């Protein structure tokens, strides 16, 4: 009896230590990001911490000066297109994989998830060479294709878990009640997968919006997404506008992640 009590308190102690360590690691990783936020409200033309004054100059510059806004719009367009494409391809693939078994199924799963396993630089280089030969200059298509490729595995993983949690008998029951395969998909499967679909669409959007390597490799002149624009700006000058952009991006990402959590929890 004594022994178990001792070992229980021992394990709580270990748990506390592990928790403290995890929080420390988390703070270490996140604080540098949060430092950007006060920096973005600085009025001087330098990136400085702590900020010596407060102003919205950098935000004004983002919205009014230069081509920051056009890059932002491009990023939005690409991210929305990516989300739509990745969801349509990913959901149908996940459905097909979950509801059938055939030889080579494992190989197909591995193939579909491979963009997650291969370093992004390799994917980016491959796409660069591919589109250099095909020539799609003057369009955002190469970036969309690249981002879709990278987002599909995440959609498949999210949708597969939603499909696994769904009672298989429900679809059988609908079929026996007289629903055609299409009716079953539209009236039963799709509504039941709705939160999974929305969550994976938001994920795909975020992946595309944040992605810099592929966009940098295959984006032609006039097709700089927001992260690429930030990256190239920082090469020439350390502009405090970067801090403002980074702050806005952080808010967007956090917002989307919270939204995904709420949607997934609602079930």
């Amino acid at each position: 009896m004594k022994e178990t009590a001792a070992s229980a308190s021992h394990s709580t102690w270990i748990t506390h230590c592990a928790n403290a360590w995890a929080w420390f690691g988390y703070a270490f990783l996140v604080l540098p990001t949060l430092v950007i936020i006060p920096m973005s409200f600085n009025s001087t033309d330098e990136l400085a911490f702590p900020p010596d004054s407060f102003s919205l100059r950098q935000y004004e510059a983002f919205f009014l000066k230069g081509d920051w806004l056009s890059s932002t719009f491009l990023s939005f367009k690409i991210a929305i297109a990516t989300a739509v494409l990745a969801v349509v391809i990913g959901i149908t693939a996940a459905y097909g994989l979950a509801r059938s078994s055939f030889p080579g199924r494992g190989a197909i799963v591995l193939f579909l998830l491979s963009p997650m396993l291969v370093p992004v630089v390799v994917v980016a280089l491959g796409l660069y060479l591919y589109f250099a030969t095909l020539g799609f200059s003057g369009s955002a298509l190469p970036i969309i294709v690249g981002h879709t490729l990278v987002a599909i595995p995440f959609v498949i993983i999210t949708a597969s878990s939603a499909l696994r949690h769904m009672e298989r008998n429900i679809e059988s029951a609908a079929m026996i009640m007289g629903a055609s395969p299409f009716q079953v998909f539209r009236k039963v499967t799709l509504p039941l997968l709705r939160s999974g679909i929305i969550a994976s669409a938001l994920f795909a959007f975020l992946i595309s919006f944040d992605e810099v390597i592929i966009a940098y490799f295959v984006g032609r002149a006039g097709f700089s997404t927001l992260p690429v624009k930030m990256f190239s700006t920082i090469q020439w000058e350390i502009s405090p506008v970067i801090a403002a952009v980074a702050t806005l991006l952080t808010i967007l990402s956090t917002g989307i992640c919270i939204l995904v959590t709420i949607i997934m929890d609602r079930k």
Partner: protein
Amino acid sequence: MQRDALIGEPMVRLTGVAKRYGGGVIALDTLDLDVMKGEFVALLGPSGSGKTTLLNIIAGMTPPSRGSIHIAGDDMTHLPPSKRNLGMVFQNYALLPHMSVYENVAFPLRVRKLAEKDIVKKVEAVLDLVQLGHAKKRLPRELSGGQQQRVSLARCIVYDPSLILMDEPLGALDKKLREQMQSEIKRLHKTLGTTILYVTHDQEEALSMADRIVLFHQGRIVQQASPADLYFKPRSVFAANFLGASNILSTTAVGDGIAQLKSGETIRIGSGAAVINNEPVMILVRPECLRIERYDETSHLSAANSVPGQIVSSTILGNVTNHHVLIADGHTVMAQELTRRTAHDWVPGEQVKVTWAAADTRALEPDEMDVHS
């Protein structure tokens, strides 16, 4: 046979249906089965005996390896589930979780593209029939297990399918609710005259509900009969053991209708399989047919079988009392009698004799013989 007594053509006719999986696994050996219109047939057997496989084959969820399925006279063997006009009740209800009770019941009518006013009328009628008229706006997860299963019943009967398949529909409910739902299902069956195929592994459920029980073992039908016939006239050791409690004695046949225990007592056989002289034969006596008498008492049963033994234990289980008796050949048998205040108290170790009538003695086929039957 009993099914010849029923009028009309079979609602379901299975001919030579078999299901084999890769690697030589036989889920269902070649079988024929007719189900008459309005009949309530229970498919009974231990898990893995093929009864659920057969239900899935009839529903169209699993294609048979061989054989044909006719429902209401039409060949359904190659039709998808949606074209078979069947109803199915699942153990886990399988209600559409994102739809209200009303919408769940309306679903089969909507996919059949009925007019809205007909849908309203039919749905309201069946919800009243299953006493859920008050709950039509609720979501399935807001209902109890019994209520959910009633919704699933309503969802079946609303489109008047030619046949309702039930796959262990009460398996997830507790005992009291299960009994309540059993009588509810029987009531619906009587009122509507629906044909029902009911899969269960619960022998009491099958005995109390079905017109006919089809007993499955290892992918084949070992016997099909009315509940009473299956109980009193089981063909094999498996059938005798699966339904009810049974005492099975190993004997050797010594003449026409006469067998002998290892310890020498002769036993008259009342019915059952033909016996061959000097061959071993298994004999069934139900516990409630055994009587325990004082060792020196003269038996008052005519043509009685009588074997000496020794009381091992007596247990009162409420309205019945079970006596375990070690008989002369070394086996322990169970005798069951109604519990009475005036009954003799048998003491463990007491010398007794166990007697029973020849009519209650049945020769069984050993299970191996089922292969060829």
